């Protein structure tokens, strides 16, 4: 693989565009902050919504069933199916399931925890969490690697490194 470091976000963005146009890849970026201008789609908000609604429905069902069937507790002739008083609990339960689902799906979709990755062998990648903007060309094909190196010459990276893996 090849790892190239750029000084600024604009440099990385230009390199990304060129590499995509030349169809060299697979590409990966390592950046200190979210890269502007990249598509921001993620399935997680939808997962959160579905999980929240499921949790709230399940909570309502449990309350309704246990209060009317499993443990009927008549007080002063008031209705057993007192749906209005189930609302606070169903909201809180729905929120709990939604937030837990959001956090867990973030981990699952990103395949975290992932404590080791071949890219960690590069010492300079540590700058990615400070102010370094990195492009990784994750291929082992010699022909693609050569083309990538040629392309990088025009793109003015601060540093280029070739790594195994």
């Amino acid at each position, binding site marked *: 693989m090849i790892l190239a470091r750029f000084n600024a976000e604009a440099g990385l963005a230009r390199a990304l565009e060129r590499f995509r146009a030349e169809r060299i890849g697979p590409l990966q970026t390592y950046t200190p902050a979210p890269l*502007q201008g990249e598509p921001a789609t993620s399935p997680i908000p939808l997962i959160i919504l579905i999980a929240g609604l499921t949790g709230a429905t399940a909570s309502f069902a449990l309350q309704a069933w246990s209060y009317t069937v*499993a443990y009927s507790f008549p007080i002063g002739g008031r209705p057993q199916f007192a749906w209005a008083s189930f609302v606070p609990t169903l909201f*809180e339960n729905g929120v709990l399931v939604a*937030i*837990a689902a959001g*956090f867990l799906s973030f981990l699952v979709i*990103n395949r975290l925890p992932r404590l080791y990755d071949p890219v960690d062998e590069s010492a300079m990648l540590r700058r990615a*969490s400070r*102010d370094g903007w990195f492009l990784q060309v994750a291929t082992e094909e010699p022909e693609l690697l050569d083309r990538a190196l040629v392309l990088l010459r025009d793109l003015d990276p601060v540093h280029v490194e070739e790594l195994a893996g």
Partner: protein
Amino acid sequence: MSDVPLGAIPVVDPRETIGSMTDRVSGVPLRTTGWRWWWMALVPSASLFALGLLAVGWSFYRGIRVWGNDWLVMWGFPILAYVWWIAIASGGTFVSAFFFLVRVEWRTSINRIAETMTLFAAVCAGIYPILHLGRPWLAYWLFPYPNTMTLWPQWKSPLLWDFMALFTYVVASVLFWYLGVMPDLATMRDRATRRTGQVLYGFFAMGFRGTGPQWRHLKATYGALAAIMAPLVVSVHSVVGLDFAGAATPGWHSTEYPPFFVFGALWSGLSTVMLLLLTLRRPLGLAPLITERHIQVLAKLMLTSSLCMSYAYILDAFEPFYSGDATERIQFLNRVFGGYAFVYWGMIVCNCLFPLVLCVRRVRASHLMLGIVAVGSIVGMWLERFNIVVISLQRTHLPSAWGRYVPAVFDWMIFVGTIGLFLTGFLLAVRLVPMVSMYEMRELLAEKGQA
């Protein structure tokens, strides 16, 4: 600065870049010198915590009869301290979630401190109801689960709603905090020079490396969670209000309670954030990131929430007379002129009258005065909880049940113990975790062209 309009004060020092900001923030937990003040704060805090543990141990051994709670004032210290803590916690979520959604730029460098405050205040709040159960080892009975007694919780009780709300709130606050802290732990892992630091930060960063997909999903998840946290925090404190409003006790039984409690949460929470910012920004070297702008915005928000409190207190005084209920009237007059009248008037001074000095620009410019108002707010809110929980229960519908509540020494010990727990936890977080959200600051700096 008093002539400069608020928007003109920079939200971050113009000389900071993403690199220098990262060094500044991540350098704090990594530095090995300059921690004397920290030890000087930790030792008394941990001692208070130990004192609280001692009192909790004794309460377990002897039972909760060692407290001042009696058959007429059953709620006493544990519940008033619970409500006080959960209000402080809520303020942090308001800053971090609500102001994230409205995209104000001054939220970015203070949200970590606010969220960390929320975390430990929520923990302090959470242990009180469990201690108050008297037999805390049976706390799991609150969960709905199939059991041999075929019993189910009383779903119609606000106390159960409160358990559900608090449980959700603690879990949600931890996950929301951790999601935001993960990229910063990755920075710490990459910048740590010692092996222990690299391994521990690396473990908790879970392999976050700042790849394209990681950022994309992080932003989406964080935004969605913030959108849920904002209504959650309002619901949590409203449900705490319903704990009281749902009872037939005079002084509690009022539809005003849920919003009244949310106002109180804003007031005490913002004041605590203010106090933490004023105390921490110099020793942690964060003054270029937490500027006068943040402090002035918080000062104005404090004034606003104090005015909301005044509105709630006026309604609170109006209702007993408007309702025409003799017990409500007796209860209110006892509150204002009875044996604990100093609590009521102390609350009015700390929460309504004294904060009015914030109307004066020169006062807002003085950090000392802001600190005094903030401490006054925290004390005033404690007095308010005492006023609501204790004084109301002293004058219920049955005159034969009238009496006077006096807290026992163990009540005080457990209370200062939770303060010790809060401070110990917060200090440990300051020592180990970056106290400004670095990745959000990098985005902010990039927007300002300071990359």
